């Protein structure tokens, strides 16, 4: 008994001291807000920019003092000058739009078509089971190896590049949507049916929103694959595009111009990547069907 009362007294005293603690803490209250996260993000972005500038400065410097052979490795200042020449007297801008256009069209159509294929699997298990292995098999085919066939089939124009970009993306998108469909919680479907839902309700209200994160996760890979498809198409045979410019520059041993092409492609892929990130965010935010 005695021990018991002691315990009670003890706990009371710790309790009162806790209350005091709370009182004294009130004055220096710390609220978790976003300012810390924002600061960290600013530091990261600043660091990224500084690192980029340092790489360029190092490249320029090493090339000037002769540690890097500027014939092979070119030099940022020369690349800028050559690039400017290619814009003002050549067709660099048109080439860039050509490549970007084929990539983006192929990417959008491939992603849409692939997503529809993948989502359609939800409607019939039998159809899904029959189709799935072919999808996986076709995914394993190196589609770039088909490029010559496509160029002969669809000509050396814009279409063959867009189609190659499309082929590069469609299967990945379909497989991603397919995983999304497979991950749908059966109980959620059941719950909707219990509310009198038809299949189409379940599809729009549960299947699509459940699958969106899966589909979205494939976008970033797909934009890079689409660009690769376009460039290979241009390598095979083309009158326009950055890929053709690089090939041509290589043939006449103008390595500076090759570097211009590489830099433009890098910038292009970064810009498209950022665009995809934005699309990703938007899609995830707006899936409240």
């Amino acid at each position, binding site marked *: 008994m005695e021990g018991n009362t002691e315990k009670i007294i003890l706990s009371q005293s710790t309790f009162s001291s806790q209350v005091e603690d709370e009182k004294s803490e009130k004055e220096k209250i710390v609220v978790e807000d976003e300012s810390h996260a924002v600061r960290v993000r600013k530091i990261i972005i600043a660091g990224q920019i500084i690192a980029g500038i340092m790489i360029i400065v190092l490249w320029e410097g090493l090339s000037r003092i002769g540690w890097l052979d500027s014939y092979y490795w070119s030099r940022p200042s020369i690349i800028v000058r050559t690039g400017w020449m290619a814009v003002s007297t050549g067709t660099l801008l048109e080439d860039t739009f050509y490549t970007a256009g084929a990539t983006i069209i192929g990417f959008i159509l491939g992603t849409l078509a692939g997503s529809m294929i993948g989502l359609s699997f939800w409607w019939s298990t039998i159809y899904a089971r029959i189709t799935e292995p072919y999808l996986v098999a076709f995914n394993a085919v190196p589609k770039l190896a088909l490029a010559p066939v496509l160029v002969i089939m669809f000509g050396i124009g814009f279409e063959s590049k867009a189609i190659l970009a499309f082929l590069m993306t469609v299967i990945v998108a379909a497989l991603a949507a397919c995983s999304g469909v497979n991950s749908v919680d059966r109980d959620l479907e059941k719950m909707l049916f219990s509310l*009198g839902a038809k299949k189409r309700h379940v599809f729009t209200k*549960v299947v699509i929103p459940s699958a969106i994160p899966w589909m979205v996760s494939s976008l970033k890979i797909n934009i890079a694959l689409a660009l690769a498809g376009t460039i290979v198409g241009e390598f095979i045979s083309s009158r326009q595009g950055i890929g053709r410019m690089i090939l041509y520059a290589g043939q006449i041993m103008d390595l500076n111009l090759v570097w211009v092409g590489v830099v433009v492609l890098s910038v292009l892929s970064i810009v498209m990547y950022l665009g995809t990130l934005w699309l990703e965010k938007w899609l995830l935010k707006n899936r409240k069907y």
Partner: protein
Amino acid sequence: MIKLEVKNSSKYFEKNNNVFCALKSTDMAITEGKFVSIIGPSGCGKSTLFNIIAGLLKPSTGQVLLDGKNIIGESGRVGYMLQKDLLLPWRSILDNVILGLEIRGTSKKEARKRALPMLKKYGLNGFENHFPSELSGGMKQRAALLRTLLYDQDVILLDEPFGALDAQTRLLMQSWLLKIWGDFKKTILFVTHDIDEAIYLSDEIYIFSHRPGCIKDHVTVNLSRPRNEATFTDSLFLNLKQKLLASLAEEQEQTMRS
């Protein structure tokens, strides 16, 4: 008046080429406006029975009559809250609750207008724009139950709605449910593992036997309403509890042995 009738219903499943019986010739007659509980050992087919009544499963034999009409295989004729809360994580609480109305073709705007006062009245005030992941377990159950209620069918099936809650929250939710039941005058079928809960809430209790599940016992709870904490110490309550405990212990034993 008899609202819902289950007639000689059974359900057989096939597993690894063995046919086994999940529910054996069950008969029930539920009077309109009553609160009826079902208790029984785990795996005895309670959820299976609910799935049959809700039209999500077809019974192997027998019939389910709602207002005298056969509703086998027709989903959406009764409100059904499944064993999990099953809120859509990408929808706000308000938009989750209006799901049933939306499926019926009510516009989102109209449905929200109708649901909002309910959320406010029944303990979700201020949470309408939160997402399910931001809510406590009890709150989620409330939202799921309000969704079922707003779907507005006369009969509501609740499959262990408070199974995952702690004892304290459970008590609160039980009173909350009784209040709602009083306000809406629904016929409720309620599955639980908790004998106290069953007695406290119900007018009648069905006890299911060990697998294959069938009705072993059917008792009427004559405790007066409204019920409160004092109900738990009523001698009628204690007698009934003892009886049910004994009855269920036999079944539990069989479950352990098998």
